[in-house]
């Protein structure tokens, strides 16, 4: 059963239609890359998936027991975060904030989850380091760990490699692949990096106002949209 299914969805941004007739679905363990030009509605779609914005028409459903709150989200970094005085552990733990229902403080359980996720992403030894003193790649790992605390079945990554150097970018991609393959976490990634998208993802969603492309990476490589967008035909 699909974790997310999207049928004939129409999305608006400030009363303008940005996407019409959007159809796609995400199954357990999938790796979906969302690509498209600026203004093609990527951010609007993310908001809709996260349940922060209603669709103007059509159905966007969660299935198989997943809800929008169960999605681990990795937003783009803000400038304020760059010099934020917080320890790595505090940041990761804040991912659990929606799980501590009707309690004021974090319990042992949340702390265990946070520590476990830090170990999975190889940042456990950074636990007491200050977030602002980490390198860009390390900061993204911390935020990934936090996202895993929020939702361990699905991660939604919003242009995660922005501002990273080539080495850190490569490392982050392989880490995301590892999370997808080894931990079985479903990945939805919004990206500008078309090459990385086709190299990593299983499915591609190419947003376009009225005729968005959705299909496997192999199908995408053969499609017209891909060649128009500047990709080299295989």
């Amino acid at each position: 059963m699909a974790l997310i299914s999207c049928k004939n969805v129409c999305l608006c941004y400030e009363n303008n239609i940005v996407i019409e007739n959007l159809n796609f679905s995400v199954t357990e363990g999938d790796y979906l890359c969302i690509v498209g030009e600026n203004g093609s509605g990527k951010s609007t779609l993310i908001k809709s998936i996260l349940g922060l914005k209603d669709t103007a028409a059509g159905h966007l459903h969660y299935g198989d027991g997943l809800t929008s709150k169960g999605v681990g989200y990795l937003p783009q970094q803000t400038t304020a975060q760059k010099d934020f005085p917080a320890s790595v552990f505090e940041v990761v733990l804040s991912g659990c904030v929606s799980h501590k229902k009707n309690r004021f403080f974090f319990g042992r359980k949340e702390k265990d989850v946070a520590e476990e996720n830090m170990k999975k992403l190889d940042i456990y030894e950074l636990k007491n380091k200050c977030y602002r003193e980490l390198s860009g790649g390390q900061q993204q790992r911390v935020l990934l760990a936090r996202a895993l605390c929020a939702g361990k079945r699905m991660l939604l990554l919003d242009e995660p490699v922005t501002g990273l150097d080539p080495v850190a970018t490569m490392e982050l991609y392989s880490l995301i692949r590892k999370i997808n393959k080894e931990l079985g976490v479903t990945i939805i990634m919004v990206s500008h990096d078309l090459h990385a998208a086709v190299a990593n993802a299983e499915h591609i969603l190419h947003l376009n106002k009225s005729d968005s492309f959705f299909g496997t990476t192999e199908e995408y490589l053969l499609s017209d949209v891909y060649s128009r967008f500047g990709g080299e035909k295989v």
Partner: protein
Amino acid sequence: MIDSLNFIFSQEFLVRGLIVGILISLSSALLGVSLVLKRFSMIGDGLSHVSFGAMAVACAANIAPLYFALPIVVVSAFLLLRMSESGKIKGDAAIALISTGALAVGIMATSVTTGMNIDIYNYMFGSILTMTDSDVIVSTVLSLIVIALFVIFYNEIFAITFDESFAKATGTKTSLYNTLIAVLTAVTIVIGMRMMGALLISALIIFPTVTSMRVCKSFRSVIICSAAISVFCFVSGILFSVKYETPTGATVVCLNIFVFAVFFVIRMINSKAFYGNKLLKRALLTITCILACSVYSVVLFAGTNAAEINSSNISVVTTAFAQYDFARNIVGDEGEVEMLLTPGEESHTYEPTPKDILKIKDCDVFIYGGGESEKWVDNILETIDSDVITVKMMEEVNLREEIHSEETHSDSHSHENHEHHESVYDEHVWTSPANAVSIVQAIYEAIVQADPENNEYYKQNTELYINELKKLDIDFYKMTSESKQKPVIIGDRFPLGYLMDRYKIEYYSAFPGCSAQTEANPVTIAELIYRVSYTQIPVVFKIDLGVGKVADIISEETGAEVRTLYSCHVISSEDFNNGEGYISLMRRNLENLAYAIK
């Protein structure tokens, strides 16, 4: 310092101030962390202006300021947050709009009523010492609520401070918590303003966080460190202000600057590698800390506390100069007379220091005017319980109304333009020698009540002095009867109404009464200039320690000479050191007036 501490704990009003201050420091430090990190520092600053505007309006409308300002500031906090979120008007511009707007409304409200009075001044620069019981209770409860809510929602507040979009996506009600932070900030600013003043309160929110961010590496440590810095600076601020008689609010902020500087240096040393020389680094850090501690303790421990009040003789404390001089003439060598306003100090913006309050509490006789500019006296007399005998000069004479219309002059009843006629009584009662006689009599009675043993001595002094006053009175009468009775032009504030009324001297002044207003109406100035040149008046007057600018303008336009009239409310330090008194200053007035109206 032990002395200062003992002193503080022995005074109920200081203990209360200390408790409220610590609670406010705590809550502002906690909220400050979130505001500074969310780049909302300026909201705190903007809100303090709104709060000031609301207080000013409340004072003008005679509503309890705290209860009036609270809802208004909460609403503005809400609006500011919404405006910066929706991005229709950029955040900093929105803050500037709201804060300057509120300030303007506040200034308008004060100008149509009483002018800048001491209440407004208190809200601008703070006055922790004159808080009433209800102020203390409300502030305590509110700040406890702020602290409790902050602790309860600590994790949520961290989540939305660090990353609002993530928190929102995982189901945290971000707008709810943003509103919570805004409301708590508004509450903290309103109650903190009473203590720190509108111009300084945002320092209490911003400084501790920015300081602790220099060295702290986790959110929790930033919070704990800010709270500690805030309380430390506040308590030391009180100690310093007791010791050096400085205003509390400004002292607290200065200490915050000091701590910030220390932390800044520590950060600088910490971030340098020193070619791997850890020993050097550690040495430098230690030196910095030792240096900072020694500067702090030297300033706090050095010097002596003010001399104890001599308890054997009678002690008289007065607010302003006229009553000081009266009392000094009666008491003679048998006791101490002390004036709270130091010579040369401006009377309308005077604020009592902790020492002053103690002086009032511990003296035998306390003499004050009782007018608008001394409203704080009533607060203090209410908060200290002391068996001091008080003389309120305004209760000893027939009062005249201070007319609040542009171009005040003597035969105002025939005049047309009385738009805002307010029944505020002129507080400068001593300016007529006849009033002075009644006041001196009342002061004599109070002094005898406090020290009956020396009655004979005091009685003799009083009789001598009253004779002098009566002679002065007669000389004034002679002067007016011998003159041509030209009108008197005063290009300044005008505190000598009682004098003019008594001798039926016609006068025109640039400002109504003695408000601290500094901007004269241009029409009034034009009329005064016209009058001077038309009737060929040789002299235009200014008031000692007044503004005097209008007098200069009139003098430039007409060629009239500028001379000074003495209000005897305050005295310049030069005159004070030369031993001038009420009678000698009034004789100068007599001479100058005689020259002007001859």
